[in-house]
């Protein structure tokens, strides 16, 4: 029991640390995180966000249960493939600007950057399922916005602490995924 409590506290502390000090977490943890695991984070986050959007539409009578299932699967694909594509584009940009980080590192960093979105997606799904609230816009947009800070920290690591360029990179990458999600679920 005590071991479970210690693990739970450790996980909670890690999640809070990602939200408060994403750069520190990236530096400390990234080497121990496999690429596949880090891609599971945005995959799961977008799966849950698309599921919430599907549930909202289902309650409004605009989607059938099969439609909700299809939208959820699309979310999983969007989370994994979308992040991989955006990470590839960011890596190419960083290399052109003199960055030295590998593609594997970039992929893992981008995946981990979506931890705040996953936290929001889990909270949103709870309120959606338990209280019947329409949570996709409120929790979805907020969760995706919270990933801007870790993306900026990732950009600073990739671009040698150049704040302006890393903000531009985070804006474009975060914006692509946010507006892509919004256009698909609209």
């Amino acid at each position, binding site marked *: 029991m005590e071991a479970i409590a210690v693990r739970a506290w450790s996980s909670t502390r890690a999640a809070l640390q990602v939200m408060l000090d994403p750069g520190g977490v990236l530096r400390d943890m990234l080497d121990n995180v496999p690429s596949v695991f880090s891609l599971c984070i945005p995959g799961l986050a977008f799966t849950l966000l698309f599921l919430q959007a599907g549930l909202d539409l289902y309650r409004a009578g605009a989607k059938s249960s099969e439609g909700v299932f299809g939208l959820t699967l699309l979310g999983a694909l969007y989370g994994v493939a979308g992040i991989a594509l955006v990470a590839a584009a960011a890596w190419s940009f960083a290399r052109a600007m003199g960055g030295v980080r590998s593609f594997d590192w970039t992929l893992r960093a981008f995946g981990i950057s979506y931890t705040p979105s996953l936290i929001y997606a889990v909270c949103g799904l709870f309120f959606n399922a338990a209280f019947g609230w329409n949570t996709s816009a409120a929790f979805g947009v907020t969760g995706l916005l919270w990933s801007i800070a870790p993306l900026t920290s990732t950009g600073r690591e990739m671009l040698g602490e150049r704040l302006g360029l890393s903000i531009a990179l*985070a804006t474009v990458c975060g914006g692509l995924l946010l507006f892509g999600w919004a256009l698909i679920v609209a």
Partner: protein
Amino acid sequence: MESTVTTTGETGYARFLYPVIFLLSFGVMSLLSGRAIDPGAGFVVVFTLVGLMLAGLFLCGLAGLAYATNLRLRRTCDYRAVLELYARGFVLLLPFTILALTGEIFLDWSIALVFIQAGIMTSGTFTALEIVKLSDSKASYIIVPILGAFSFSIAWMLFCAAAQAVAT
């Protein structure tokens, strides 16, 4: 004897740019928030001006609060250096402003409040971490700046609610 830092060591260009970006971001965010409450031009102008004043006051207040409550920071920096640190940290509001503006123009969103609150908390946290770095990495010094940013975020929400009440 330790010397007191009077600026963050930025070049003159950056020191000028950060407050401009801060004012520009809050100007655009206030304009978008004002439009969502009441699209009348007069209301939007007044709302934007009051919003800018509120944002400026909060920035000075947050810097003052961090300076007053952090003994280690006071040993190495003066108030102006902390204020510059905050202006630099709030550059992170720019992505939120661009995304809010893009959403408003292309997707007809009217949720500037969501963007500005996330932006304030993100920028406040970013600055808090910079303050901790300047305070010999003592982690407890993160609490006051984060609570300050949270208060700023809540105050902005109350300001919008009050404006909504006035408009209706």
